[in-house]
């Protein structure tokens, strides 16, 4: 009898148990079995699952993917292109020796989670897996079981970080197809003010990246997080992102998704204390037969918080773009203010776009709105611009840039913005 994909993954885990758990304390390793158990119980979602109907997860996992249990490539340690406070590079999910542990004068620390467990075990143990939904999300549970290395970012209480903290994940292989369980944990303590960029770059080889990110934002802390993925055309990226916000905190996320054959983003934002603000800006640009499946969930479980989500898409060729967003407002979450918008441009005659903004409200004193648009380039705008002397092609280009700029302008990390703009331009110019 042929084995199921779940069984094969379980076998892979048990065959490599020692190497996976190497360097981690028993308390962490013992939980891995629980995560694996929950993964096995839920199983890999199929297209029959409502939440996964646009992402062929089962089919993707059924392909042959090799897993690197030991680092095969050394991250390039060329200096970061931008003006960074500190920069860390990750290769196929692993940090190189140079990046084991970097601590700045202002107390900001960045490095491998294994080093962090030596330097500040309490911080790591109290936050790792505290946000990730290991009992309900099979891909997250799978990452938590297999996770070997993890980027840890720590910003101590009251620290204002002038320049950005840059994390670059590189995926590169000459082998057939490789899977990676890259991971990240950010702890921004009370009163912090910081900008972080997370880049996923995949220039060579086919990858299935099952990434999990947890971001903790303490009382009155302000964090801007820009995440940009640009994957190879045969690669798959599952991005599972979780955040937890404390009182009067602000988290602003700019997310740009490009490339890859399938990109699934699953973002969960929790307000754990009152008077906080969460902003989420997202953009995908698809072409060919790419699939971008963007899912967000904002949990207003306490009162007086505001959330703003704007996700835009440009779908060309015969690609598929999907946005499913849910804002949940609990009974006690009075005076919640939530906005959710999905805007899409259809550029290909066979492209498809699905938008499902959802509100689930149990409190009675709230301000919530949601909306979705799917359309084409506005002819009146083109006419207006041509009347000022622009050619039709330039008018279209400028309109699309304007459309995109609406999202990118919220990223204040200059060198990352430049990189995003040039990558987006490359695709848009083909439309």
């Amino acid at each position: 009898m042929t084995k199921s994909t779940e069984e094969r993954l379980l076998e892979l885990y048990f065959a490599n148990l020692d190497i996976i758990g190497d360097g981690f304390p028993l308390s962490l390793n013992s939980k891995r079995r629980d995560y694996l158990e929950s993964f096995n119980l839920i199983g890999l979602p199929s297209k029959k699952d409502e939440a996964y109907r646009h992402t062929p997860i089962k089919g993707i996992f059924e392909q042959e993917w090799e897993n690197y249990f030991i680092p095969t490539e050394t991250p390039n340690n060329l200096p970061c292109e931008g003006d960074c406070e500190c920069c860390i590079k990750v290769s196929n999910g692993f940090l190189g020796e140079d990046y084991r542990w970097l601590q700045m004068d202002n107390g900001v620390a960045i490095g491998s989670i294994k080093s962090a467990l030596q330097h500040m075990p309490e911080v790591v143990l109290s936050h790792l897996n505290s946000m990730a939904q290991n009992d309900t999300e099979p891909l997250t549970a799978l990452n938590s079981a297999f996770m070997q290395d993890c980027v840890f970012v720590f910003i101590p209480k009251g620290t204002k970080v002038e320049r950005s903290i840059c994390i670059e994940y590189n995926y590169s292989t000459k082998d057939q197809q490789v899977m990676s369980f890259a991971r990240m944990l950010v702890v921004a303590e009370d009163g912090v003010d910081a900008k972080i960029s997370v880049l996923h770059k995949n220039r060579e080889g086919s990858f299935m990246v099952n990434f999990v990110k947890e971001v903790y934002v303490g009382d009155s802390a302000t964090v801007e997080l820009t995440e940009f993925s640009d994957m190879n055309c045969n690669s798959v990226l599952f991005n599972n992102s979780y955040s937890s916000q404390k009182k009067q905190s602000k988290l602003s996320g700019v997310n740009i998704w490009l490339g890859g054959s399938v990109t699934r983003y699953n973002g969960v934002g929790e307000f754990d204390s009152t008077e906080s603000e969460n902003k989420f800006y997202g953009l995908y640009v698809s072409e060919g037969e790419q699939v971008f499946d963007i899912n967000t969930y904002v949990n207003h479980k306490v009162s007086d918080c505001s959330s703003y989500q704007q996700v835009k898409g440009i779908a060309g060729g015969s690609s598929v773009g999907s946005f499913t967003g849910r804002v949940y407002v609990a009974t006690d979450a009075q005076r919640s203010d939530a906005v959710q918008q999905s805007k899409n441009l259809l550029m290909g005659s066979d492209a498809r776009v699905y938008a499902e903004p959802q509100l689930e409200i149990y409190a009675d004193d709230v301000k919530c709105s949601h909306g979705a648009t799917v359309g084409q380039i506005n002819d009146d705008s083109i006419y207006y611009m041509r009347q000022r002397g622009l050619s039709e092609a330039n008018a279209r280009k400028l309109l699309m840039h304007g459309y995109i700029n609406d999202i990118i302008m919220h990223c204040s990390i200059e060198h990352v913005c430049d990189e995003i703009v040039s990558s987006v331009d490359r695709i848009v110019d083909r439309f």
Partner: protein
Amino acid sequence: MLEIKNLHASVGGKKILKGINLSVKAGEIHAIMGPNGAGKSTLASVLAGNQKFDVTEGEVIFEGNSLLESSVEDRARAGLFLGFQYPVEIPGVSMANFMKLAIAERRRHQGLEPLTSSEFLKLMREKSQVVELGGKLMGRAVNEGFSGGEKKRNEIFQMAMLDPKLAILDETDSGLDIDALRVVATGVTKLHREDNATIVITHYQRLLDYIVPDFVHVLYDGQIIYTGNKELALKLEAEGYDWLINKSE
């Protein structure tokens, strides 16, 4: 400068313009008035090259060249400007960026080098004063979130930047309060020279208190039924169009 001969145009098979004849020379200001549905905005759109309208007969000569064969952008580059009745909002595109590209195209047509950044900024500053438009609008997206008055002022600002030979202002006065009307109208007057011309399409005489036309034309049912001087506008304001319409029928 502009010669319109027996111009006929229709939209979706419905005839709107039924033989327009109009001659505009450099240095002149023409006002076109007329009741709703007479074809005033259609005339403006047809001259600008809006492809929603089909020209079925006639010809238009602009600066010695036939206008009807050229594209919207080529007409604009040759110096024809249309001030829109409903300016379009373009999210994410800043006024400065938009104008920079537009001016580069206009200058390229004139065989001139593009402006340097500092020349361009100087021009922006200078021209924004024509319509008392604060610099703050320049960083904002084109017309996005602008008030009705700001949108119309922005049209005149663009006209000032592009320095057209012929400007057609399509109901620039609609939706303006008295102060904005004064600013917009004075702006147009300031831009008027001996070597350019303006066609003002309007419903109301009050705009013509500021912009003094050399000719006032009455457009009715797709034709110019009467042409007079600025006194005609006053008479129309007082007596309406009926006396003219009755006379023409």
